[in-house]
Each structure stands twice: as C-alpha cells, then as structure tokens.
C-alpha cells in the first residue's frame, strides 16, 4: 500500500488488515498512537493482534503485544484459530509479549504513592529487544481494573503514549465502550490519545449481528467517513468491506459476449458487454434459472470459465435442469469451464457471503459469474446490509472486468418489482424482465430488455416459450399493452392507431 505524504500530511502505515487500509486512507498514522474503542465482543483484540500480524507477515515489521487482560497463552491459542502461529514468531524474534495481565495471587495492597514504571520499562525493553515498529496494547480498561487510583493510571498511560511516540513506533491501544453510540471510551482514555480514534461496533440489527468499523478521527490526515461493515474470518481475521471507498471505474469496453441465447443477444444489440452486470428479473417459473443456464453454456461454448453461485436449488437439481434443456453441466465442470457453488443463504451473514464470493472469484478467476438468485439473499440481513452487500459485490465484479448475471425473483406473478430490483437497478448495466402475460385464458411469457447501458437495444416485448432446447424467443406481442404493469390488455387496431398518433410512434 502506498502512504501518501502531501504537504504537512501525516504519513500512513499500512496495517495489512484487508479493506481497512482503503477505509483509513492508507493505514494508521505512522509513529502515532491510535485508540481502538469498542464494546465487549467487538473484535478489538483481534484487530490489535492483526495489526501486528499484518506487520510481520506482509511488511517484515516486528511487533510487541502488551496484554492487560488475557494471558499470553490464551492469546496464542485464540490467534492460532485465525491462522497465526504467534509462538513461532516469538521464537523468531518477530513478536514479543509484555504480560501485564493480572497475577493469579490476590491483588496487591497499596502502601503509598506509585507509578507504572515497571510497565514502561518492560514495554521499552521489549520494543528495543526485537526492534519493534508496531505496538498493540489490549486493553486499557483492564489497567484501570488492576489499580485503584484512576488518576494515577490515566497519568501513567499518558507517559506510555509519550514513550511510544519517543520510540517512533506506531501503536494501537484498545479501550472498552459501554454503549455502541455514546462516549468514546470508559475512564476518559481518549484524553491522552485524542488524535486518532477508531470505533468498532457490534450492533444487533433486525435480529442479526452486524460488525462495523468507523474511523472517528485521524488528526491531520484523510480517511473515509462513516461505518464500514467487517467480518472476522477464520484464517484471515478482520476483513473490512470498503464499499463507498471503492471507486467505480467505468469501463467503456465494447467487447460483447454471448448471453448463450442468439435471440436475446439480438434483443440486446449484439450480446452483453463483457464487463457489465445484467439483472434478470421475473416471477417464479418464468425461466430465470434457464437464462442462467444458457449464460453458463454460452460461456462454455466460447471457452470461458463461469462461476455459478446458486442459492435456491441444489447441485443435483441444477444439473438435472440443465440436462432437460440440453446443457451438460458435468461436461463443463470436467473441462474446467464451470464451478458450481450451492449454498443456503442462511448459512452465513451477508458480509461472510461477500467475502466468500470474492475468494471464489479470486481463486477460480472466471470470465463470467452468475448469481441465482440474488434476491434469495435479501432475507439474510437488513435492507441496508443487503444494499451494501450488492454494492460491494457489484463493484468487485466490475473491478475484475468480467460479465455478471444476477437473477431476482419478483414477489408477484404479474408485473411488480422486487427489493433486489429496487436496490440494484441503478447499479446494474442491463435489466432483462421476464413476465407472465395472461391472455385469452392462457399464461404466456414475455421478455423485454428494459435497459442496456451504452448500447441500443430492442424496446419491444417478445413472447418466448420454454422447451427441451431452452428458451425460444419469438415474435412481439402484437396489440397487447400493460404487460409490465401486470395488467395485459388486448388493444384493438383502431385504438393502436390512436395511440400512435398520440405518441408519434408508439412502436419500436
């Protein structure tokens, strides 16, 4: 990561915490102490430890962990589950503990004035011994619990902060908060590390836990404002989802890829754009999974790898469906052109789903990705979380410059729109609607391309049928209006004439 140094700007030190450095404008202020405050269970300790682990594994920078609460043995064990072998780093002289956790014997009596000279001497010695450039202290509240005189502790922690500054190390101090939205930290600790404050939250939102990180202030340097969701992953630790910090690079690629259906390609003006996101919206049974299958097959025919993330149907079912339309998923898989991942939406939070999808994309490096259906994920989190998830996924896919196809199920059979549509229609490049048309006592189906960014496309609604070769798109619905609104109405030729006169040319 780069650390921008512009006139008078504080230099940044990349933490190595994925996504966080983007949110923090490059990392933590270098050579300063940053307060990381959060309620119980807000992943403060993981954040502090990961700041050191990131330094060790990514930048070759040794770190000192001063623990006031948990024993080093507990921390080693906890961090091992995240994939970090602290004991090995200790042997290599890249990690050192200062064990300031309460001794097992009874708390010492106070016989007169005291200071925390022992803590300061031990911290300095550990930093010098391994040449540490990073220090984590976890957590400040436990120091106040160990010593009865809060005034002395506050004063001594101020001395610790001065020492760290003098040593030139970048430090993270964690502190407890009682409430998610309230004073920064207990005991007024922000008074002595006032310059840089990060808040970690763990909020109950619609019966689900949602973690966020917010850079409250970085004195003299820039950072992103507001809360960013994050998750704690086994083997990775804290992963921040930088959302609005992502830049939406607009690609004007004119390269087209086939949707897998020649007639649909034609309707789109020659196929989908390679680096675009297409949303297919329709009620249940309109053929969304079929379009997805054709999209996969279209990729396979062109020798492109496709990642299919299915949240509604099982693997067996998808294989059977594909076979019934003459598409052989097993053969695509064997040829390495298809990776099919089926999951229940409820198995993970949206943040975890997003990170898993990113991992799959990074691993498989497909040219196409299909999500069937995106709307199945709506119920996993709050609306806000869903929207953030969709934005995160969309921008990630766009960065990869691959073609994406999402499906959304509309709640009503006729017309209507889904939450998914409402939230992502402005983000997607193209929207294809699949709609039931109730005519003369018969359910028929119609397809239309509602939007095609950067290209001309057909504006008519065509009828289609589904048979054993897939989706057969036919002629336009002549003399019918109100299909999209869910109230198809056959209009007489006379009325059509009148409409044409009203709108100039009401046809294509």
């Amino acid at each position, binding site marked *: 990561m780069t650390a921008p140094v512009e006139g008078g700007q504080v230099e940044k030190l990349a933490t190595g915490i994925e996504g966080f450095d983007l949110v923090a404008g490059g990392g933590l202020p270098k050579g300063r102490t940053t307060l990381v405050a959060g309620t119980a269970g807000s992943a403060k300790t993981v954040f502090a430890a990961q700041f050191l682990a990131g330094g060790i594994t990514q930048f070759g920078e040794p770190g000192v962990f001063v623990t006031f609460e948990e024993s080093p043995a507990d921390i080693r064990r906890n961090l091992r589950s995240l994939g970090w072998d602290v004991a090995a780093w200790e042997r290599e002289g890249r990690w050192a503990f200062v064990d300031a956790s309460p001794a097992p014997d009874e708390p010492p009596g106070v016989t007169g004035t*005291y200071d925390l000279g*022992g803590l300061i001497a031990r911290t300095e010695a550990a930093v010098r011994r391994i040449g540490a450039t990073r220090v984590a202290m976890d957590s400040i509240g436990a120091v106040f619990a160990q010593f009865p005189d809060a005034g002395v502790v506050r004063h001594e922690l101020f001395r610790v902060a001065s020492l760290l500054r003098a040593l030139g190390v970048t430090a993270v101090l964690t502190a407890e908060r009682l409430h998610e939205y309230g004073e920064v930290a207990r005991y007024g600790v922000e008074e002595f590390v006032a310059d840089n404050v990060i808040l970690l939250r763990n909020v109950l939102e619609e019966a689900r836990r949602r973690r966020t990180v917010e850079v409250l202030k970085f004195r003299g340097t820039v950072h992103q404002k507001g809360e960013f969701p994050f998750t704690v992953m086994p083997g990775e630790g804290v992963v921040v989802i930088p959302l609005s910090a992502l830049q939406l690079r607009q690609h004007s690629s004119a390269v087209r890829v086939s949707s897998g259906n020649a007639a649909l390609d034609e309707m789109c003006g020659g196929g989908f754009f390679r680096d675009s996101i297409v949303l297919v919206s329709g009620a249940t049974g309109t053929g969304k999974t079929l379009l997805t299958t054709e999209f996969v097959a279209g990729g396979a025919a062109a020798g492109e790898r496709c990642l299919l993330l299915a949240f509604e149907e099982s693997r067996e079912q998808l294989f059977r469906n594909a076979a019934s339309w003459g598409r052989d998923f097993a053969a695509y898989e064997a040829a390495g052109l298809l990776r099919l991942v089926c999951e229940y939406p409820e198995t993970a939070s949206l943040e975890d789903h997003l990170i898993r999808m990113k991992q799959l994309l990074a691993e498989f490096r497909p040219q196409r990705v299909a999500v069937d259906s995106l709307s199945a994920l709506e119920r996993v989190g709050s609306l806000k979380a869903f929207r953030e998830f969709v934005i995160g996924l969309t921008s990630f896919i766009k960065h990869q410059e691959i073609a994406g196809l999402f499906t959304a199920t509309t709640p009503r059979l006729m017309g209507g729109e889904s939450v998914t549509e409402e939230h992502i229609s402005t983000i997607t490049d193209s929207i294809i609607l699949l709609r039931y048309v109730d005519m003369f006592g018969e359910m028929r189906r119609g397809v239309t391309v509602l939007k095609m960014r950067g290209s001309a496309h057909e504006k008519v609604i065509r009828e289609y049928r589904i048979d054993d070769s897939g989706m057969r798109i036919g002629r336009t619905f002549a003399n019918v209006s109100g299909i999209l609104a869910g109230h198809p109405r056959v209009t007489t030729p006379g009325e059509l004439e009148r409409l044409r006169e009203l709108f100039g040319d009401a046809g294509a």
Partner: protein
Amino acid sequence: MPGYRLTLYIAGRTPSAERALANLQRICAKDLHGQYEVSVVDVTEDPQRAEQARVLATPTLVRELPPPIRRVIGDLSDHAAVLVGLNLAPVEGA
C-alpha cells in the same frame, strides 16, 4: 532458620523509590529482626527481572519467601498496609 525473602522493584532513583528504600530498611530492622534477605531491582536497568516477576507498578515489594508470594505496591509509607499486605506477623507480641 529461614526468614523472609523480599525483593523491592523500583524504576530509577525517584523520590518515591528513595522513600520506599528508607521505609523498607525501617521495617526490616523493626519488624523482621534480622531474619530477612532483601534485594533491590531497578527495572530500568533490569527489565527482564520485572518481566519475570510481572511487575507493572513501581515501587513494588514482593515477599518471595515464605510462600505464598505476596506483594504490595507503593512507597511503603503506610506501615500497617505493608504488614497486612505482606502478612508479616508482628514478632514481639508472640
């Protein structure tokens, strides 16, 4: 006859360290009747000893013998608190 083994941890020759040393001398002479062994560790010179003993506050006085280990913090000016904290039996009464 094994008496007391005490270690006083100080951080440099600060006023409170000086007070602690003077108070400790007085306690040894008055309350321990020669049955003691005292060492003084300056944590700024020997931080490793402080690490091993997990000393945070200075001055800290640790009673290493007889077991169990007991410790008090502060400059030892509160005589009664020292006796209670280190569980030093007032000898003359017995």
